[in-house]
């Protein structure tokens, strides 16, 4: 969201800077731009959680309260998603799992993995995106968030790493494994359908 749109609307970063300067009403622009994204993100993270709209509202209030902590020279989206991630974790039941990240081998060991998807991966992106939307709930929990952020929210590995507080290489590994799980699920589903 950092590039200007066709009719030269201000970027998120510019709007955020205006809010920092005291133009409170400009915060509405950011709410408009992110409310649907965060609702979508929340639905993916909290399948059976609290009322997602309430959580999203709390996220916006927290973003506004801490707006002076945002560094306007950096992209706004990862910062908002980071706040959202923390709030959704607080609202959900993932807090305990996060505390034990120390023992997660994905985080523990360094991975010699490309820092970003290659062109071939980009080419299959649309197809994968469709599968992600359909089968996200069936993926292992730790793979859901990175793959949703990458394919459905179109964020970079680096941004996802910043949001989830994970090394970029770990993000790459999780997305690759999530895709493998996803394609295995698709294959299983197709086998089932052909049997019928």
């Amino acid at each position, binding site marked *: 969201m950092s590039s200007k749109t066709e009719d030269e609307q201000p970027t998120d970063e510019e709007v955020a800077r205006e*809010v*920092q300067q005291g133009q*409170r*009403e400009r*915060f*509405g622009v950011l*709410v*408009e731009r992110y*409310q*649907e994204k965060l*609702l979508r993100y929340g639905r993916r993270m909290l399948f059976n959680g609290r009322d997602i*709209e309430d959580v*999203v*509202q709390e996220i*916006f*209030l927290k973003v*506004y*309260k*801490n*707006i*002076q*902590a945002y560094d306007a020279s950096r992209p706004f989206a990862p910062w908002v998603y980071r706040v959202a991630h923390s709030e959704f974790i607080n609202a959900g039941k993932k807090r305990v799992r996060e*505390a034990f*990240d*120390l023992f997660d081998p994905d*985080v*523990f*060991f*360094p*991975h010699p993995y490309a820092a970003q998807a290659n062109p071939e991966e980009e080419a299959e992106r649309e197809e994968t995106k469709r599968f992600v939307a359909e089968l996200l709930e069936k993926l292992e929990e730790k793979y859901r968030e990175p793959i949703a952020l990458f394919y459905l929210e179109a964020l970079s590995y680096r941004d996802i*790493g*910043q949001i989830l*507080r*994970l*090394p*970029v*290489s*770990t993000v790459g590994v999780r997305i690759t494994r999530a895709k493998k799980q996803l394609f295995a699920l698709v294959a299983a589903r197709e086998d089932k359908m052909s049997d019928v």
Partner: protein
Amino acid sequence: MMPDQMKQKGEEPVVLGIKDRVMTSLATGVVSPLPRWRICTRTTVLFLLTVVVTAVLALLTGALFFRLRVTAWWLLPQTGSDGLPFLFQMFPWGLALGVFVSAFAVQPLWRRYAIGYRFSVLSLFIGFLASLFFFGILLGRTPLHACLWEHGGVTIPFLDRFYGDGSAQKGRPIILGTVEVVSKGTSHEMIVRARDGRRWTVSPSGSGAIAWGGTAEVGSRVVVVGKKGEGIIRAVAIRTFRGDEQCPLPRWSNKKEE
């Protein structure tokens, strides 16, 4: 009203509800931005907390290594001195627990910073160990070690408990001294002159083998852990240091020395 909003209103009225509620909260002053100074203060406090917890972790880990090294406890199962029960009894559980708790406390703090999440935990851990080894080597190869040795027994905040004569480990005192005579035979006995000038015959504890932390030579300085008898120490662990290291700093005095 913007076209986007109308579209959203038509399709998902609840979406507009969020914006309305947020903007109402802002307008009524229920929520206001935290001033920059508070955010700066919070960031500074968190940074200092991170530094302090990291320093505590490093210190406790260093102390844990030092304690294990001084008494060579980790060699006990191999040498069979008193075996595993003794190791279990003498293991610095408090320190180990402190290290464990600090490691957990430091993790969420570190993950606030890019260095804390851009590298794997193993990389950070190896880096941490490398720093400890670096400082350990620095300590062992520079006059700092000799200084701590020289001034052990003098009141040095915190460090004296690792170098000082007064340290006692579960009732087994540590004796600091200089080796005067080393037995030529296989008895492993030696005569050590302690700081107070008293001479001690150091011999292995009853079970025979002893956990040696190095080769004792005449002039070496040693740390002996064991049971005191009449002029005899039944040692369960010995750590030796080079005898040629000298502290360039003047020996400071305090009440203990007097």
